[in-house]
């Protein structure tokens, strides 16, 4: 891989930019791999990267039915934070955050990670109690989180409205300064480039139609639209389509797939310095480096694989945004879209071995998967390589729905659920 650098930009400029190498290639799939990852989203590509980088397992194929990063990875609102409530969650999201902090350097790819702070607003007594509880829990777990007064909220984020006469006045906020945003596409591309450079095969336009098992029930490979591909280890990392894929191996999941919409405004000059989220008013917002306001809220209420949703979700979200930021009331919205989010009953992910030997699953991130991308890929690679979960993902089992060890992050998942 030819490294990106300032020097490279100058060099290539001298050669009319004809020397830039392909970031990843388009290999024909082999008949056999050591590991197959199903789903070339951020989590899947990160898994393949860490399998190669940390465990030396390079005979890996990442199979993608569409184009890499074309699912939820390319559709999210890019918020990164680690201020969830429980120890297990603090573990994985903070592990991810620490990886984010060095990611551009590690991948030699600018993922545009900006630690501008994530502020979660409190509008009533309940919000204050829940937020402060989170602040304390986070600090006990070594995760930065602090409580702000309304004036401090205004100082940190000037365009916000802290007037007393609104329906849901701001009575405070929890701020995670290390949180922020990154460029979602860049994360997929960065991991893809680095993984491909180490020999991982990224096979696009290749849809898995079946999961093959031997007479002992263990995984032997997959059937795809481009033929049979064998492997003793298969990791399913396919977000909204997880139920569909796991069904192919006879494994039933505690998941429901819902549409999650998002929208962006016309680009404007920098006005919003941080990420702002509000559970009560029901929306979250940040400003991209292109200048667009990136806005999202909760899922549509019915299970769907359509990647679209109803208009009233968007109008309700924008009403909420204008309540908190009256200054944005005349922005023109430019584009809206949807993804498919797989939601678990306790709003926590599943990164685990399954009852089928050789089959691993990474799913259930619901509306909050992007922030965990590096951490998820990292510990999932460990789980596959060692055939045992890492201690960071040890709690995120499939069994917890039977033995009751749920990790209830409905409050921390906040608006989105």
């Amino acid at each position: 891989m030819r490294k990106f650098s300032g020097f490279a930009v100058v060099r290539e400029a001298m050669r009319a930019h004809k020397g830039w190498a392909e970031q990843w290639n388009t290999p024909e799939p082999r008949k056999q791999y050591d590991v197959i990852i199903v789903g070339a989203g951020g989590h899947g590509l990160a898994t393949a990267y860490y399998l190669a980088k940390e465990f030396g397992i390079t005979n890996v194929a990442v199979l993608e039915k569409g184009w890499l990063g074309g699912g939820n990875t390319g559709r999210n609102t890019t918020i990164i934070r680690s201020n969830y409530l429980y120890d297990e969650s603090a573990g994985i999201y903070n592990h991810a955050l620490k990886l984010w902090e060095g990611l551009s350097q590690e991948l030699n790819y600018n993922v545009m990670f900006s630690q501008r702070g994530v502020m979660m607003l409190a509008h009533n007594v309940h919000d204050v109690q829940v937020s402060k509880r989170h602040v304390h829990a986070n600090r006990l777990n070594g995760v930065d989180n602090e409580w702000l007064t309304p004036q401090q909220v205004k100082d940190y984020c000037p365009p916000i409205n802290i007037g007393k006469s609104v329906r849901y006045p701001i009575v405070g906020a929890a701020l995670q300064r290390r949180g922020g945003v990154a460029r979602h596409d860049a994360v997929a591309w960065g991991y893809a480039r680095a993984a491909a450079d180490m020999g991982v095969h990224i096979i696009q336009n290749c849809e898995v139609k079946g999961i093959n098992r031997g007479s002992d029930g263990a995984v032997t490979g997959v059937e795809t639209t481009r033929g049979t591909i064998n492997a003793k280890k298969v990791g399913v990392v396919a977000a909204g389509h997880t139920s569909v894929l796991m069904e192919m191996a006879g494994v039933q999941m505690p998941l429901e797939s819902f549409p999650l919409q998002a929208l962006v405004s016309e680009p404007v000059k920098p006005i919003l310095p941080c990420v702002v989220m509000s559970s009560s008013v029901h929306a979250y917002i940040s400003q991209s480096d292109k200048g667009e306001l990136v806005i999202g809220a909760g899922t549509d209420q019915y299970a769907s694989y359509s990647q679209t949703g109803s208009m009233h979700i968007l109008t309700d979200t924008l009403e909420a945004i204008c309540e908190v930021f009256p200054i944005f009331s005349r922005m023109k919205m430019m584009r809206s879209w949807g993804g498919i989010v797989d939601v678990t009953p306790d709003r926590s992910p599943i990164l685990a071995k399954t009852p089928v030997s050789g089959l691993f699953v990474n799913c259930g991130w619901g509306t909050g998967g992007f922030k965990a991308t590096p951490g998820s890929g990292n510990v999932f690679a460990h789980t596959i390589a060692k055939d045992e979960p890492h201690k960071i993902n040890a709690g995120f089992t499939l069994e917890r729905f039977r033995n009751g060890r749920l990790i209830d992050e409905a409050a921390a998942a906040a608006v989105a659920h």
Partner: protein
Amino acid sequence: MLLIHCPYCEEDRPELEFHGAGEAHMERPKNMGDISPEDFEKFFFIRENRKGLVFERWRHLHGCGRFFNAARHSVSDKFICTYKAGEPKPELSDEQIAAVLPPAKGTPANEPIVSKGDAK
């Protein structure tokens, strides 16, 4: 916005009047206290989450208030029919199902567009 036919109000109403209530025909165990953790998990947490024809519950919350069931395609989001609570799962004809399938050409955004020129 979805338009949903309430079988009690006997007309199509906008989605805002309704509340989605998950997978239909989930029979509640009569002996909840005695069943195994596996069976409890099956009732409480495991869902088919099908990509295709689904049978689901809806409640006309801001209307007549009744629960009812619907047959819908979860890719096109088109409804085939709705039926009152307590009625059995309807038999659906091939024509009914064909009418709600997503278009064969013109793909949802992440379906592959296979072209020979892509592979090098």
